[in-house]
């Protein structure tokens, strides 16, 4: 125990101040939650509204999202005035911050984690507490695909609170009008459209190649549609190798986009240095520098920040084109709620987040797609958001972003593993077999 603490101290020294802040935060909360568990009888207390205590939450949400989550906490406090929920943002460093806190034996009560792989890792380490007490609420409000996602060894450990639909393509309405193309019905039409867009003088694709995750998202969308959900699950768990013919087929489809160099803004070398916000900005500038960007439902946030385009008029969206019989398939992601302590206060908060009210409070503020089926369409601030959110909640097949399911070393680390290999593939899209072999080698290392 002691040696861990010292190791953590040393690690913290090496980290950004954010880590230190988070570490201190959970230190403070420690006392609070211990006193609650000493105070009340566990279980029975969850339904009572006079539960008191404190809950520490570390999440990735900053800025607007943090304010929205604070609104959710405020709503929660209307029912449970005596529970003090303290939220600390770790930003994108969350895996590091929570990982170090767990290694040091001092985790937060709740963490919002975007990578199910990380949740599984924590569960294996024995750091997580099951939330079976909220199973009824979750099963009632969520589609079975989501309940399965949060279940490990038959017990519920997490649920997706904030969903992300990654099967979307965002386009500049005027660029599409100039080129005379419309939403494609399938992959072939998508490629034809791209050629027409290119001929109209606007590169069809804006690709954020500097951010590896945009490339894994593209791969997953193609793979789920081409290979089907069963293969998708097998590949997620590395039960089939990445050298499988289905992977090669998906890479070939991906290469149809990547090898159209003239049609990628900045060419491939330019794309490899373009980060996600810049890739969105390029599409929604006037005049458009590229026609469309293949990314998830967080694109409008960037559009709103950088341009004055309006939903439906300036920019619009279509679902990722079907390949074969893949209607209503959604690849998505989401921030899950996972708990490291089990106290009445934590239980109350978890139950609240899984409820209709817990999701609607944020949904009506915008920038939020809830996989919670009980959230009404009219809650969302505009039609585009409502459509995207409903697509997640009602998807025929929903699959979690595969790279987030994989061990972080393979699917979640900048310039390593899948991210890096797909970046190399973008630079050299003819190397399908080599790419598949490199992916398999990296996966074999990470999954062992």
């Amino acid at each position: 125990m002691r040696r861990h603490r010292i190791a953590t101290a040393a690690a913290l020294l090496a980290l950004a101040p954010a880590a230190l802040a988070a570490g201190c935060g959970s230190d403070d909360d420690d006392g609070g939650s211990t006193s609650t568990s000493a105070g009340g009888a566990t279980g029975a207390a969850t339904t009572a509204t006079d539960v008191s205590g404190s809950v520490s939450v570390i999440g990735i949400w900053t800025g607007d999202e943090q304010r929205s989550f604070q609104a959710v906490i405020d709503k929660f406090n209307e029912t449970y005035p005596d529970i003090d929920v303290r939220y600390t943002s770790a930003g994108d460093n969350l895996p590091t911050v929570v990982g170090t806190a767990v290694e040091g034996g001092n985790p937060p009560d709740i963490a919002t984690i975007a990578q199910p792989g990380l949740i599984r890792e924590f569960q294996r380490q024995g750091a997580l507490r099951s939330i079976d007490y909220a199973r009824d609420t979750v099963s009632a409000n969520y589609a079975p695909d989501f309940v399965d996602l949060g279940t490990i060894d038959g017990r519920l450990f997490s649920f997706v609170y904030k969903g992300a639909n990654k099967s979307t393509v965002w386009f500049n309405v005027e660029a599409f009008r100039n080129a005379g193309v419309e939403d494609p019905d399938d992959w072939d039409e998508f490629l034809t459209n791209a050629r027409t867009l290119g001929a109209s003088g606007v590169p069809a694709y804006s690709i954020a190649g500097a951010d590896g995750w945009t490339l894994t998202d593209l791969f997953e969308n193609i793979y789920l549609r081409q290979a089907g959900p069963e293969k998708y699950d097998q590949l997620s768990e590395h039960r089939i190798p990445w050298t499988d013919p289905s992977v090669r087929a998906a890479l070939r489809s991906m290469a149809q986009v990547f090898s159209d160099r003239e049609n990628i803004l900045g060419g491939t070398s330019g794309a490899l240095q373009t980060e996600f916000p810049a890739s969105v900005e390029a599409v929604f500038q006037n005049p458009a520098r590229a026609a469309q960007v293949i990314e998830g439902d967080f694109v409008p946030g960037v559009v709103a920040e950088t341009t004055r385009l309006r939903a439906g008029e300036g920019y619009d969206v279509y679902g990722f084109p079907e390949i074969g019989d893949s209607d209503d398939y959604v690849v998505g992601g989401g921030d899950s709620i996972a708990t490291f302590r089990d106290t009445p206060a934590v239980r109350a908060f978890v139950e609240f987040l899984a409820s209709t009210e817990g999701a609607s409070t944020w949904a009506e503020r915008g920038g939020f797609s809830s996989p919670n089926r009980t959230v009404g369409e009219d809650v969302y601030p505009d039609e585009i958001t409502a459509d995207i959110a409903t697509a997640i909640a009602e998807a025929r097949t929903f699959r979690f972003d595969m790279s987030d399911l994989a061990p972080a070393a393979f699917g979640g680390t900048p310039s390593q593993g899948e991210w890096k290999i797909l970046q190399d593939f973008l630079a050299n899209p003819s190397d399908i077999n080599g790419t598949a072999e490199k992916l398999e080698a990296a996966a074999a290392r990470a999954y062992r």
Partner: protein
Amino acid sequence: MSASALRGGAETGRGGGRRHDRRRASLVALLFLAPALIFLVVWIVYPTGWTIVRSFFDRGGDEFIAFDNYKEIFTTDTLQTAIKNNVIWVAVVPALVTAIGLVFAVLTERIAWSTAFKTAVFMPMAISLFAAGVIWRIMDEKDPSRGTINAAINEVKGVFGSDGVLSAGQGSSPQLTGSVEQGFVLRNPVTAGETASLGLTAIPPDEVPADARQAVEPRAVEGEIAGVVWRDFKPGGGRPGVVETEELGIPGATIELRDPGGGVSQTATSGADGSFVFRDVGSGQFRVAIGSQTFAAPFTGVSWLGPKLITPAVMIAYIWVWAGFAMVIIAAGLSSISREVLEAARTDGATEWQVFRRVTVPMLAPVLSVVFITMIINVLKVFDIILSVAPQSSQDDANVIALAMWRTSFGGVNDFGLGSAIAVFLFLLVIPVLALNIRRFKREEA
């Protein structure tokens, strides 16, 4: 430091002459040293020891795997790149920083505004390396409309560049091949009395000249070659290679008539409807081409942040920061050199270069070596500036040992075993340089 202080305490005791006093004196000394000692042990000795121990365990920390982590350092591609890059860094940067600092220091001695100049050169030291990295990350952007450096290159190029009517374009059918740089050539040769249709696509809509009119299909005339160059695109795409309604001509394009030998026998400029005509062409087969003068291909930028140039790009940023430091230290050393020696050399007829080479540099040698060794240590642990300059896609190519250590331990891989091994490896690399430095300190003290 603590050792010498201890010795100092003991000596005072011996001065007292009595054994009892001596023991008491060392006790007092120990008492005073205790806080520093505890700090050293808790914050330096223990973590170092634990890092070494941890480096022999696997990523979970449960299984003893002896030297496997160390083997991995030398067998993983990206770690090998890191080592290679570190070697390049050590070979290039300390020498360059020292040399540039020396040049600045010597030159500023002779100019009137030396303080202002020194302040300007020293300024980068006032910001953190990370911030400096962010600045250079933006300056190094490939897109000339974003990156300062490429914008500057673009300006210089613009002075010599051509001014065409279009910036981009592609042949609309396989009949027309070529590129913006070389011009586009019709594949099939034409003879007098025939026509040439040169359709271009991929022209940005806002670049179609305002005076462009509906393109017209050329009509064959005896003894002439008539043709049209037009934007072969209308909403929805249209039929490639066919002049249709809504498709505009490209006025102002330079059309070349090339004879079989490849020479240009005639040129023409297209009209508002894109039409052009070559008269009195004579017999024989010709090729019709859109000359490259038509295009002002925009400068797309040098890929500073790409895999090939990323390490030099980071080094430039790093040198930019540290040159000021070197200059200030060397300038201080320079001012302590006795003027008489320099004057004597000059009186003896030495040229300025000889004075610099034979007198100034040798006399500055101790200062130069301080700067050089400090830079070696700094460069061995270079980290944050690489993280901030290199985009994710080229971080592998810019990798160095310290960065690899961080990425392995905290950057998502969370392999503390391998990370510790890399840390120990880096530690071993720094030790000889540190030893050198300590020995030099001791010599100076003695």
